[in-house]
């Protein structure tokens, strides 16, 4: 368990790791978006893939934070992260139900 009121000692390495993952995904997204734009109608799948991936990044980052904070037993912030993800889900679920 990490001491309260101090940074988690593994925080810097973990943030560096997630930063590298995000950058890798962004490079793939940029290539897919550029290829999709060049290919015209045939590239729509690539463009949709790029937009879907970029939309997922911030939400996956919150899920990753919830996992990290649960390992630190920082339950208050785990609850807030899960509440946030639940609140975010309300919009698209409501839109789906209204279709």
């Amino acid at each position, binding site marked *: 368990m990490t001491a309260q009121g101090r*940074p988690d000692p593994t925080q810097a390495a973990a943030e560096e790791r997630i930063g590298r993952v995000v950058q890798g995904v962004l490079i793939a997204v940029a290539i897919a978006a550029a290829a999709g734009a060049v290919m015209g109608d045939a590239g729509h799948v690539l463009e949709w893939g790029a937009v879907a991936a970029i939309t997922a990044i911030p939400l996956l980052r919150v899920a990753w934070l919830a996992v990290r904070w649960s390992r630190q037993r920082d339950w208050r912030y785990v609850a807030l992260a899960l509440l946030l993800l639940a609140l975010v889900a309300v919009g698209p679920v409501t839109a789906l139900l209204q279709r």
Partner: protein
Amino acid sequence: MAAAAALTSGIGTLGGLGGAIMLVPLLVLTGTPVSQATPLGLVSVVAASSAAARRHLRERTVNHRLGVATESSSTMGAVVGALAAGSISEQALTYVLAVVAVGAALAGGRRKGVRWKPDPTTGPELVGEWVGSLHGAYPLDGAVVPYRPRRIGLGVLSMGLSGLITGVSGVGGGFIKTPASSELMHVPVKVASSTTTFSIGITASAALLVKMVRGTLDVELAAMVLLGALVGGTIGSRIQARLSPPTVRRFLSVLLLVIAAILVARA
């Protein structure tokens, strides 16, 4: 389209405001229908937020706990705002937003110096966000600056208000969140800006998912905006890392005045 997204995302990331508030009016002025321009603005915010992530994480200026805590309040406000959208005059609300932007610009622009100074007794092992609290420390010019956000209740309330405004008017809340964090909660402006860049990406993602489900996103234009915003967000976060906190704050003040002018023009 890509160039406009790069420019507005770069400026938005620099001040931690998101670029949609500038991109959407620009697209509308150049003939894009509002119904198409709004989702494209959201794409630009999500892309720029993610593009800035690597730099902000490396700089250790994002306080995720602060971002998640305030974002929960904003999202709740946005849901309430979306439900109440029909009962509040959008024009009156836009004028209120312009006044808020001018007030925030004056508050940040008039302040001299920095609140949180480097502390020689704080070692590099304390850099980052602190477990169990919203406190933290960030590196600045080889030194470590500890900070303790204040007036958390007022800050969370103002974030809820920014969400409410987003829900009612569709205007992104970044221009309220960064000054509220910096001027109300006394979070260092660089931390406030990086944290808001992280949190507005979440709000925009949530709204973009709705647009995708409803089928109101033009994916060809979105791909162009995405490419531009990735470039702009990367450049904006790199420039921000090199600027001193007072310079970021002054830049933010000027940007807020520009946004107030855009809001009045929209109203």
